[in-house]
């Protein structure tokens, strides 16, 4: 009897232990570490000192603002693969070719993508030569603080939308074809078909893509930033991840980096909880 009551705990113990030992315990150490000092103050408690320094650091504020910018750009990052998947589903001429072409960048590493675009977007690079042929002035894609963040985000979307495209195509395969046929018989235009038939039928897929794209943007742009801008120009392309790496590796401020990591963790936790709530609410509707 007693053994039976213990059984469930024994059975979940390995999983719980792994999570506690490899996830939660290091997390606790990291948070604890963020309340200590750096350099001469190594190991001594400094209370909220690191957090106050973060709040006063314009560079960290820029990095958080850029997170906000990414959230604002999220609809674009979702709309592009959605639209292209729609075209493929509606069998535009050559849709088989496009399907593989669109997916291709997803298999390239961010470092390679960054290096390619560094060449393409250089001040005397091919894109500016092309613009000059049309009489447009050269744009300093990676050297202008007002443009660089958009450039890097654009490249990130280009490099990763293939994955979302595949998810969308999978969603389309569950779409009821009779609805589309009915719309066609009724003479609905392409825009109306998308708005009234395709989007409502794909709500779950669109939400899933929203969540995964968001996570991708917040956690995996480091490689591109490292190769393309190094956080510059003028610190305009810093993201929290890059800031953490910079403080720990370049400035030798591990405790400050821990504090920044904790802030990033809380931001991700809030975003994650919001998304869970959102998903659950729509799940109930179905």
């Amino acid at each position: 009897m007693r053994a039976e009551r213990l059984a469930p705990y024994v059975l979940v113990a390995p999983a719980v232990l792994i999570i506690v030992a490899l996830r939660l315990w290091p997390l606790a150490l990291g948070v604890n570490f963020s309340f200590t000092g750096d350099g001469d103050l190594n190991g001594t408690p400094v209370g909220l000192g690191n957090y106050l320094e973060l709040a006063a650091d314009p560079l960290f504020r820029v990095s958080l603002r850029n997170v906000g910018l990414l959230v604002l750009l999220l609809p674009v990052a979702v709309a592009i693969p959605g639209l292209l998947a729609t075209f493929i589903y509606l069998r535009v001429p050559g849709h088989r070719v496009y399907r593989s072409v669109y997916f291709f960048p997803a298999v390239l590493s961010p470092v390679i993508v960054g290096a390619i675009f560094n060449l393409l977007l250089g001040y005397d690079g091919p894109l500016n030569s092309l613009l000059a042929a049309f009489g447009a002035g050269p744009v300093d894609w990676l050297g202008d603080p007002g443009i660089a963040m958009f450039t890097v985000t654009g490249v990130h979307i280009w490099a990763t939308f293939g994955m979302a495209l595949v998810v969308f195509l999978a969603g389309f395969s569950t779409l009821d074809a009779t609805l589309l046929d009915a719309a066609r018989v009724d003479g609905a235009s392409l825009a109306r078909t998308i708005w009234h038939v395709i989007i409502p039928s794909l709500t779950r897929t669109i939400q899933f893509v929203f969540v995964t794209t968001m996570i991708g943007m917040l956690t995996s742009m480091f490689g591109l930033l490292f190769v393309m801008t190094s956080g510059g120009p003028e610190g305009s392309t810093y993201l929290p991840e890059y800031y953490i790496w910079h403080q720990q590796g370049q400035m030798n401020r591990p405790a400050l980096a821990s504090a920044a990591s904790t802030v990033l963790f809380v931001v991700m936790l809030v975003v994650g909880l919001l998304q869970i709530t959102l998903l659950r609410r729509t799940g109930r509707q179905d």
Partner: protein
Amino acid sequence: MKQRALWSALIAAALAVAGCGSATRTDTPSGDPQQKQRKLVVWDWKSGEPAAATYIEQAKADFAKRHPEVTVEFVAQPFDQYYTLLGTAIQAGKGPDVMLFNGGGQIRDRAGALLPLDEYVAGDKSRLAGWEAFSKDGKVYAAPVTLQGHPIYYNKALYEKAGLDPAAPPKTWDELVTGCAAIKKATGAACFALGNKEGFGIQFFLSGLGSGILTPREYDDWIAGKRDWDSPNVRRVFELWKQTGDKGLNNDGANSTAMFSDVFTVFETGKAAHIIGLMSDVGHWNDFAEFLPPDKIGVMTAPVVTEGATPSLPYDGGIGYAVAKWTKDPALAADLVRSLTSTGALTAFYQKAGAIASDTTIDVTQAGPAVAAIASEIKTGRPALHVALSSKTLDLMGRLSQQLLSGSTTVDKAVEQLAASDRKG
């Protein structure tokens, strides 16, 4: 579901509240020197390069002669990640016995984890140059391997095309600007090749031209840590920086041109007449030789901007080997450092890698006029200005320099912020 979400939030909150103080060890137990050490581990980012192979072999052989029973293992780390990895080792209080450092801020920020080497390297003090960059508060923490500095290289072929005398480079800033106008007209080449994508360009500019801008007194004070940011000459450095951008003296898109990968190409391919380059590792006379024949590369001293300034070659110890505090047998590790800076090993490094080695007794006269010009200035050379600044101030200066070029800040505001950062230390 709801409960789980609540739980994760609760755990995060509990963690945030619970964390107060006490994280890492401040001291590491010093090991027992009696226990014979059989193996030394060295971390660097050089030993993997083919150009450094002979150097490492020579150093190993030199060390093996004195300690045949000890094995030495070189672990070549990728440079991108080097200080991140090292930071982790320092936090843990264990790692390599001997490690390579860049001079200046990188080693001074980490001096707490290193062993003072004064008693071990006393015999090498006069033979090697560049100790200053590896010292903090009067103690030496690493022995210099190469010298790193910022000579101003110029393209003699472009000078000839513009009708200028390649044997007589400009002596003053005004002469330089006039000459550059002639070069631009005749060849279309920019005056300076500048790569400021990472914000490194300003460091080269400050050090390369500083000795022509600051008075000797101001220069010495700057190095000694008494930096007067209100001085008109210090301001002048940043005014000139802004001017080079405003007057179009730099190559286009300087803020998106990468320092090491792109800017040297700009100079080598004749798109710019001058570059404030390096002496060792990359971006120097030996590197340029691939495109520019050695007799077409000149080295000039900083043009005089302020009357009474005495131009000199800015250089410091470039890279050097240090000993970790936690090593078991400090004398043994220090002995390996001595082997790594022996004349035989350094001669091999100079010949194969084209670096200016720290050993002043090496004969460099065969390597061409540019090297000879650099070598002749080592004696009168002084530490570079930017090396004296903390890495935090350098980081800020990089971003401000980009703002100055793009016009989004003023010289006054930039100098004010730098002064504040420098005073904080």
